[in-house]
């Protein structure tokens, strides 16, 4: 028992990542509301940010600003990478929402089952 708690404590960042990943994916699959799907997608993408950022913190490392008196720094690269990923995520989200607006205009609803009821061939 203690063993498992130890593993959990040592890697709690990964467990949170996994939790967010799974919940995000679940929302995408299980929810029929188009906006909620996008929310789930964003949640899923957020988990990835954590996946990159959390290992970047080196235990005992300081902020990555060069100073002669420090030897160990946390890794700044993943932060940079995730800035890019966040931009991609934002772009995706905004594009998705724009599409949802247009779908609402075209179909009158953002519920997936209602849309397919109106237009069965679109499935």
């Amino acid at each position, binding site marked *: 028992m203690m063993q498992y708690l130890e593993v959990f404590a040592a890697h709690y960042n990964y467990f949170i990542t996994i939790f967010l990943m799974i919940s995000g994916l679940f929302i995408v699959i299980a929810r029929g509301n188009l906006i909620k799907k996008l929310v789930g997608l964003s949640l*899923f993408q957020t988990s*990835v940010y954590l996946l990159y950022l959390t290992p970047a913190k080196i235990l005992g490392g300081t902020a990555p600003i060069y100073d002669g008196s420090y030897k160990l720094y946390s890794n700044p690269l993943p932060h940079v990478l995730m800035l890019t990923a966040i931009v991609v995520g934002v772009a995706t989200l905004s*594009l998705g929402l724009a599409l949802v607006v247009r*779908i609402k205009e075209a179909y009158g609803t953002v519920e997936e089952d209602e849309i397919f009821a109106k237009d069965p061939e679109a499935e």
Partner: protein
Amino acid sequence: MSALSWGAAEPHLPILLVIVPILGALVTTFLRNSFLAWLVALLVSFTLPFMTIQLLVTVLKTGEPIVYMIGNWEAPFGIVYKVDQLSGYVLTVIALIGAVIMPFARRSVTAEIDERARSWYYSMYLLCLAGLLGIVITGDAFNAFVFLEISSLATYVLIALGRNRRALLAAYQYLIMGTIGATFYVIGIGLLYVVTGTLNFDDLAGRLDAAIIDPGQRNAVVTALGFIVVGLCLKLALFPMHVWLPNAYAYAPSVATAFLAGTATKAAIYLLVRVVFSVFGAAMSLENMPIGDVVIVLSIAAMFLASISAVFETNAKRMLAYSSVAQIGYITLGIAIANQAGLTGSLAHIANHAIMKTALFLALGAVFYRIGSVLYSDIAGIGRKMPLTMAAFALAGIGLMGTPGTAGFISKWYLAVAAIDEGLYSVVFLIVASSLISVVYIGRITEVIWFREPSAAAAQAREAPLSMLIPLWLLVGATFYLGFDTRATVGTAAEAAKVLLEGVR
């Protein structure tokens, strides 16, 4: 091509390949006149093949890859663009397809897309082109993700510009699935980064050899491989992750479909090949996870189930979309068999299928331009009204079936030889049996086009304009030419396969 003097630009060709279309996209954003926008897109599209061919020819001649360091930062500290036999080949295919489609696009876009959105179409198209070229040319794993998303986002917009409201749903569904796929890919890269500390493909390759042996890191590497492969298979529409493709291709504007069918999935296939063979190495990929066996099974499932779905379709574009899923199955089959003949066949099929499928979609685009529909009920009997267009369609269809004398046969031959070389006799028969199903759906649409009474819509059709016929027949001519002169496709593909199987480290 090498006689073309690029002058001072020559050493910077790799980066120019990406910058030029991005700049083009920027310029077209400010152009409200769609003709000018088209002109810019045309100029860009015509310049790019020369650049890619220059790069490919240089690589083939010297046998050494071209490495371009961005900002003069050396790998693995900076991002590096690398052109070797494989990437040069795929770059050329993408650039050529883009160039051939552009003359066709002018009338087609004018007919199918709202006036306000027309120049936006060209911006998005150029961004998509930039993204696809970037995926292929980059040597950095995360950079590949960025370009993957650039091209995908542009693709979602391209699809959504279709007239039918179902295009919006198709784009949305593609967005959801595509983002999940890309995110899986980036999760895999993240795990690799945690293990090795680098993102450069070559550097990863070097460090993974050590990492896979270390029991503490082995799980992470294997999981990363799994995530990356699944993510990319979502992007390249391997069965059963192909669900987004039929609707996306069916409801997108005709030019967009023609372009995407020939290029978008191929870039993802390139990335898959690069990761599996260059980064992980064939031995590692195939022995640590049953990727080979799983992909073989899924490929065969794709070949059969998608072909059968195509037989029952009544929308011509959707039918060709399912056919594309089946053909992608052929490509992944060769990759999974992973011997010289298999890789050669798959890589050759990247070009061959792009040419044939683009020709078929262009023909349908011309039909849509004339009568506004591609449903079987509407295109019945249109063969007599648009003989040149439909003759091209029939000939490209013959190529798709794999008739000897066409490019399609060459790919099938190499795949069959690959299966026999590995002793997979049942796979040989499965390959040819699924080709037989393609005969059925091509035969069915040919019957509809040529042997039925013209429908009300078809009766009013006229032959397509020259700007549409010329690109179409160029591609059809290429289909037959490449069935005999295979030096460009098979020759290059064989070289690339050799390099990949040696495991470039």
